[in-house]
Structures are given as structure tokens and as C-alpha cells.
């Protein structure tokens, strides 16, 4: 809640080059980018099937429930699952690393950066 004193520009550059930050960035990017590509493709597959394969989509599964509805509900299920997966990943891999970097930055006095 109480923001630490504004870090100096040199400090950002130094943090960006640090191995801790690189690890944080790659564990963010290696999760977020492929998963985004995955769910967008999965969603587009659903849209394209609805558009161009109506016969397949109208296959009955149970009673009046057809494949189109099942795939639609699966989009809901996958959205909930990916959200939960990301929450877990962020809690385990991102938050602790970010906290370490923030803590270290707060411990380093700003003047030290300008002396370099």
C-alpha cells in the first residue's frame, strides 16, 4: 500500500539485466505467450467449425444436446481451467520472484545507483 521511494532510472536498467529478473520475465513469457496462442486457436477452431462445418456440429450427443453445444460449453470449461492454471503459476513462480526483486531494490539506497 505504501509505495517505496521512486527508484532511479539506472536502477531499472540494472534490475533488468539481473539474472533474477530474466528468470521472472521468462517464467512469465513462457507461460503467457504459448497459453494465449493455445486458447485463441482453440477458440478460433470452435468459431470456424460453427461457420464451415455445421453438419458435424449438429451431430447429436445426448437427447437434444448436440456437438455444437458441447463444444461451446467446453469453451467455458477451458476458460475456467486456464484462469485457475495461471493463478497457480503466478502464485508459485511469479509473485515470489517479483517480491524478491522489489525487496532487494528497496534495500539498495538510490544514491548508490547514481555513483556508478
Amino acid at each position: 500500500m505504501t509505495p517505496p521511494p521512486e527508484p532511479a532510472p539506472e536502477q531499472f536498467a540494472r534490475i533488468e539485466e539481473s539474472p533474477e529478473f530474466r528468470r521472472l520475465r521468462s517464467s512469465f513469457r513462457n507461460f503467457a505467450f504459448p497459453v494465449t496462442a493455445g486458447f485463441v486457436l482453440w477458440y478460433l477452431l470452435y468459431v470456424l467449425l460453427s461457420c464451415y462445418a455445421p453438419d458435424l456440429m449438429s451431430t447429436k450427443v445426448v437427447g437434444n444436446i448436440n456437438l455444437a453445444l458441447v463444444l461451446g460449453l467446453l469453451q467455458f470449461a477451458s476458460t475456467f481451467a486456464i484462469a485457475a492454471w495461471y493463478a497457480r503459476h503466478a502464485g508459485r513462480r511469479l509473485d515470489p520472484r517479483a517480491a524478491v526483486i522489489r525487496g532487494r531494490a528497496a534495500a539498495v539506497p538510490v544514491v548508490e545507483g547514481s555513483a556508478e
Partner: protein
Amino acid sequence: MIQLATSASEHRTLIMSLFGVFVIATLGITLWAGRQTKDAADFYAGGRAFTGFQNGLAISGDYMSAASFLGIAGLIALFGYDGFLYSIGFLVAWLVALLLVAEPLRNSGRYTMADALAFRMRQRPVRTAAGISTIVVSIFYLLAQMVGAGSLVALLLGVSGDGAKRWTIVAVGALMVIYVTVGGMKGTTWVQIVKAVLLIAGAALMTVMVLAKYHFNLSSLLGAASDASGKGHAFLEPGLKYGLTGTTKLDFLSLGLALVLGTAGLPHILVRFYTVPTARAARKSVLWAIGIIGVFYLMTLALGFGAAALVGPKTIKASNAAGNTAAPLLAEQLGGGAGSTGGAVLLAVISAVAFATILAVVAGLTLASSSSFAHDLWANVIRRGKASEKEEVASAKLAAVAIGAIAIVLSIFADKLNAAALVALAFAVAASANLPTLLYSLFWKRFNTVGAVSATYAGLITSVTLVIFSPVVSGNPRTSLFPHSDFHWFPLENPGLISIPVGFLAGAIGTWLAREQADPAKYAELEVRSLTGLGAD
């Protein structure tokens, strides 16, 4: 229909008093919040003191607009399965916001979307572009809400209510201006929270009542809906609205793209991330929002198919050609039918909830667009950063009045459109103008001012131009904004398929062609700030 109108207007007092209770309660909250709103961070960001859960509810309140409640229920009731795509696209889109946007934005901006976009760029050109696109997207979105309000009034007051309809729109506009100018973000957020709870409760009540009629068997509800639709099994399959020709199929694809990429570019949603203290709380609020919104959209299935089965497409179309009144009509039917007291009471309750929904969303939109006007265009571009905080907030309040007035005037022309289809246009503009700039700016080191400005303007101009020359505006005698003229040459109703790639391409080309280089030190700072939260407000 005439019978419905008279029975409804007999119970108008009930609707008005229920709605009156909501208005008085929310005005009370607004006054209380207004007294606590002291500085700019209070006005723009509610003092950043909301919890993840509270903000999750408020996000849901902002997102479950008239388009979701009235529009999607209507589309499903009229077109069956094809209406369901809206629910899916609107929900999946939240993953883009969760994974790529919410936390970096919270960490790198302060009050508006442009704060994050302009972070490492030359301030004035980028803020001008982002401010303009914020206002354009919000006005499209506002229009959809006002159309929903108009259809509701027409339903409640009967066909002769043209004057009453205008007065209602004016009243909604006036109320939203009060919420925003007096309560700021704190007041508006609490209004969203109250409204989200009411809307979820109302939708859940109707869902349970619909399902109970079919012994909680989804298959028999679907069977009854397809029988009543007169279209047989085609009603449950994709294609009724969008499967007719090659063009409508492309339109469906275009819509699907706009829905999934639009959410993370909606300014009134993005500013919600500033109301919580940390990026972690921003993440939590999106997680809550995904849960709440997901459950709500599952219920739209029951509402839409329930309206088709129990009210019937003929009655729905006779009431509102675009289907915007399907949900309230369903409520009346569930309560015991037209003319019965139970029907009138449930109609009154659901209509009051729908009004509350519209009012809250409209307030959120007005706040986001007037904040952007004040913080981006006025304080940073026109006054070049010399405006005092007090002056900035005062200009936001004036802008809220002006934007309210513009929305009122525009909405008088747009009452034939479906609220969800109209919102989809706002999504297309947001996905074309805002999302490319936002993603490039956060994740592409080389991205520069020229790239940001070209992506925003190219996406904005392409999407708006294509809408103007689409069948939405002219050429279709039944559903166009100007039914008697025809100057359309773009065949699709939704421009996303063209304008989203244009936005992304323009950003890349602008960046490559620019003589200036991106500042690597600024990018390092943005990266560190956005991922660690270091130095965040």
C-alpha cells in the same frame, strides 16, 4: 401485445418504485463516496482501496451490460444457437486480459489506459490518439446501453411511449452524470457492485424458474425451444443467423475475432485495474470476474432458450424486432403471464434490474471517457502538464456532462439495433485501435511513438469507416440506422476481420519506418515496473 402493454402500464407504479429504490440507494452511496473523494487518485481510481473481490464484482458489473442481459437473451431467443457465440466470445476474451494486460497495466499506469500506452513514448501524440480512441469506443458502447434502455421503456409503456422513451433516456443520462461527477470512481464502483449482485440474483431466479419448468432437464428445454421456434432442430445448430451465405459466415468470423480481442482494449474495463492496490489484487479481481461472468453467461443459455420456448419468437419480435425485450417478456411469462399480478411483479423486478444494469454501465463508461479527456487530452496535451489536479478533476466533470449529452442525442437514432450487436462494434473498435498498441507497447522493445500513433489511428479509422459503410448504418430497410438510404459498400456488419489486422500491421509498419528509435532505457523501466510492481502507485 396491446394487452401486455396495458397490463404492464397498470403496474408501472411498481416498476417505478422498485427502480426508485435503486436510484435512491445508489445516490446515497454516491453522496457518501463523493464526500470521501478528495484528490485525483480518489476521483479516477477510487483511492486504489478496493479488494480483489470487490473489484471483481465491479468488473462484472461493468461488463454484464444491457448487451449481455437483454441483447444476448434476445439473440438466443430469436436465432437460437448463433446467439450463444456472443456469450462464449465475451467470456474467453477475459483470458487475454488476465494473462497479458491486467497486471502490467496496473503496474505501469496511474489513471487511464493512455498512461500505460504513453509510458515510454512521446506523451502528446500518443495520449491524443489514445484519448480519442477511448472516447470513440466508449460512445459506441454507451449507444448500446441507451438502445437497451429505449427498448425497455417501449416495452413497459407500450407503443405510444415515444415521448416517454426520450425522457427516460434523458433521465438515465442525467443520473449517470450525477454518479460520475459527485461520486467519482469510488461511487461508480459501489454502484457497479450493487448492480452486479442484483443482476446475478435476477438472472439466477429466472434460470431456476425456467429449468424447473423442464424438470431441470436441459435437453427438454432445448427441445421445447426448437419446437416453439418453428425452425426445428436448425434452431439448436449453428447457422441460423450467420450460416446463410459466404458473406454472413465471414461476418461470424469477424464477430468472433472482435469479441475475443476486444475486452482487453476496452478503456472502461482497463481503468478498473487501477482501483486495487497491487497487481496481485488486479489478477484476483480478474479471476473473480471470470467466475462471475462465466456463470452469468451460462445462465443466458437458459434465459434465451427459455424465452424462445415459453414466450415464442413471434411475440418477442412483435415487441422488439431486435429481441432486446426477450428477458423481461420471459419474466412476465414466468410470473404467470400477461395480465396476471405475478407476471407484472416479476416483469417489474427484472425491468428494474435491467435499468439498474444500464445505469451502472453507462456511469462506468462516462467515467472512463471523461477521465481520459481530462487526464490525457486536457491536462497533458492541451495544458501540457501545467494543469493543477483540481483543474484536471473539474475538467473531467465537465467532460462527463458533455459525453452524457452526446450519448443521449445519438441514442435517439439507434433504437432499431440489437444491443449486443452494437456492443460488438465497440469491441471491434477496441480490438483494432487499442489492443495492438497496448500489446506492442508492453512486449515489443522496438515499438515507438510513430508505431503507437499509426496503430491507434489506423485501427480506429478503419473500423469506424467500415462500420459507417456497412449494412448496420444504411442499406437494410429493416435494421439499418438510416433505413431509407443506401450508401453501404462494405458487406460485413462487424469490421473486426479487416480492421484488427490493419491495426496490428500499421503498428509494425509505423515502427519500422520511423526514423526515431525506441528508448531502450525506458523499455527496461517499463518491463521492470510491469513485471515486479516496483515504483507503482
